[in-house]
């Protein structure tokens, strides 16, 4: 139908309008800037990083460039005990963070939104079934679940994404469901029914645009969750050793006695990076603090 083709640009702009990015909140702007820098770093990691993050480096005197302090021999953030460049690791770590963060957030927001939509809109036995599944997901201790899963599967950064998709849709799903329930009782949704609109049309036209901001908020929270989870898993030694991530760096530092050596330059920067990216998501969703703990929002 030609009508839908014409309607599409309007729909797209409506969707973006629906996100209502809070550009007049300075913290939200800060969050967006952090995201921008983070994404750019990840994309141009090869250009920014002076060394291959896994390459074992030597000093000009052909000694192993191990445990160098920041600035020594031109290593901005110093080197690890194995002689790797910390700065390059930080830069490359942003890649796995971005990859995991975005895919996991997308999965969580997508599954959660679909479950919430279907459950809230259709109600009945579908709703009962999906919500019981959510109850079960709430009963699964998340981090232990990821650990066990990671131990059984081949080490890979996708384990975290997979585990999050399996478990963490529950929060998004519940909140979106309750949002859909309120929307469904709105007069204009009823009006669309009386006007003869199909369920699909009602969902896409009247309901989905209203829950999109929520999905987006949950997505940005999930980015943080994914990065934190990956860091924890890597720190515990269940990560993919071939993939440099911030969590892996922290594990490396911890295992190499960096604390006792007071090598702050080694374990502080990855932590700061994680904090920056995760809190960027929080800053953007500031004012919606309740969604940080959905189970409590009765």
């Amino acid at each position, binding site marked *: 139908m030609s*009508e839908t083709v014409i309607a599409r640009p309007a729909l797209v702009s409506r969707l973006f309008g629906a996100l209502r990015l809070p550009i007049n909140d300075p913290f939200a702007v800060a969050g967006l800037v952090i995201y921008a820098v983070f994404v750019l770093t990840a994309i141009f990691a090869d250009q920014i990083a002076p060394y291959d993050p896994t390459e074992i480096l030597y000093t000009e005197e052909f000694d192993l460039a191990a445990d160098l302090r920041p600035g020594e021999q031109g290593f901005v953030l110093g080197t690890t005990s194995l002689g790797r460049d910390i700065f390059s690791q930080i830069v490359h770590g942003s890649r796995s963070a971005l990859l995991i963060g975005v895919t996991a957030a997308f999965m969580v927001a997508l599954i959660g939104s679909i479950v919430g939509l279907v459950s809230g809109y259709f109600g009945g036995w579908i709703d009962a079934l999906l919500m019981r599944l959510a109850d079960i997901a709430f009963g699964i201790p998340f981090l232990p679940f990821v650990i066990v899963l990671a131990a059984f599967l081949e080490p890979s950064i996708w384990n975290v994404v997979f585990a999050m998709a399996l478990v963490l849709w529950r929060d998004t799903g519940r909140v979106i469901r309750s949002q859909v329930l309120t929307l469904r009782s709105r*007069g204009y949704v*009823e009006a669309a029914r*009386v*006007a003869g609109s199909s369920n699909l049309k009602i969902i896409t036209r009247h309901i989905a645009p209203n829950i999109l901001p929520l999905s987006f908020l949950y997505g940005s929270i999930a980015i943080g969750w994914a990065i934190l989870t990956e860091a924890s898993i890597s720190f515990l030694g269940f990560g993919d050793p071939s993939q440099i991530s911030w969590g892996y760096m922290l594990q490396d530092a911890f295992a190499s006695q960096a604390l006792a050596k007071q090598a702050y330059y080694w374990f502080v920067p990855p932590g700061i990076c994680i904090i920056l990216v995760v809190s960027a998501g929080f800053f953007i969703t500031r004012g919606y603090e309740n969604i940080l703990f959905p189970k409590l929002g009765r």
Partner: protein
Amino acid sequence: MTTAGKHRHEVFVSARDAQLHFRAGGALAAMRGKSRLIKAVDGVSFDICRGESVGLLGESGCGKTSMGRMLLKLEEATGGAVTFDGADLNTLRGEALRAFRTRAQLIFQNPFDAVNPRFTIRATLAEPLENAGVPPAEREQRIIAALELVRLPNPAEFLDRHPHQLSGGQLQRVVMARALILQPDFVVADEPVSMLDVSVRAGVLNVFRDVRDRLNLTAIYISHDLALVRYVCERTIVMYLGRIMEDGPTEDIVREPLHPYTRALVAAVPVPHPDQDHAPLPIGRGAPDPLNPPSGCVFRDRCPKAHARCAAEIPVPRQVGTRRVACHLYDEAGAAAPGKTA
């Protein structure tokens, strides 16, 4: 059909012992033993003829809105039957349902809630046209015509506005235009002016009366306000806790209410002039409790004339003059007028 008085046309919409029972709190609460059965509508019967306008009158929780929603198949009767032009609404599916959706329309209580705030007025009015398969070329013209029908001045100016740019009165006209744009023959109006300021109410009511007459609509007007019902409906059905108390010509009910509940209701309506009756109402204190309705007649716990029989037996509606009344006070009178029970 004797109730319809002057209308000797065919029955168009009817309810036969219609029930809408549901569990409060949903399936989950039911599992936890928290829910209770609410009988929103409990055995309601009436016939409405083509072209008739009928008021559904009652206090909050009396089931008038639920009844209205059943008439539009927004709720399905859990017992009994609701028919529209001879078809049982519960069994309506597919093409027949789609046809029904173009013929029966709803006018909402809160205009600000009834239109999607993201949609322009044009998009709002186009939705039913799209669903009915009206070609895009004709839509604009139909939209303008509908807005003219509800007497919105300079309709073309409104098309690209959003709801928040309209006043309540204007928006309610848009809501009416949307209901009328497919030229339905049946309209349910659920308290269409209760959210509006008094000075603009009259305008919307006048449009409603006018359009109804012009399109020869069959109309249900749901309200808690007898004065408004009287303004738009020649017949009134008074409901209390899911049941019909009295049903008959509005003017007769206003002048000489028969059911004790209707008497209290009529006496309670305040009027906008100084000389009015300040006598205590002929009704007990308290409020109807839909969760625990009394046995027998649901009104008996507040009824000043309740007697033993009222607790034991649910009164059956009986013909009393021009009206049908569900009250044991009229049992003998009912016996005199033969044969008409639900």
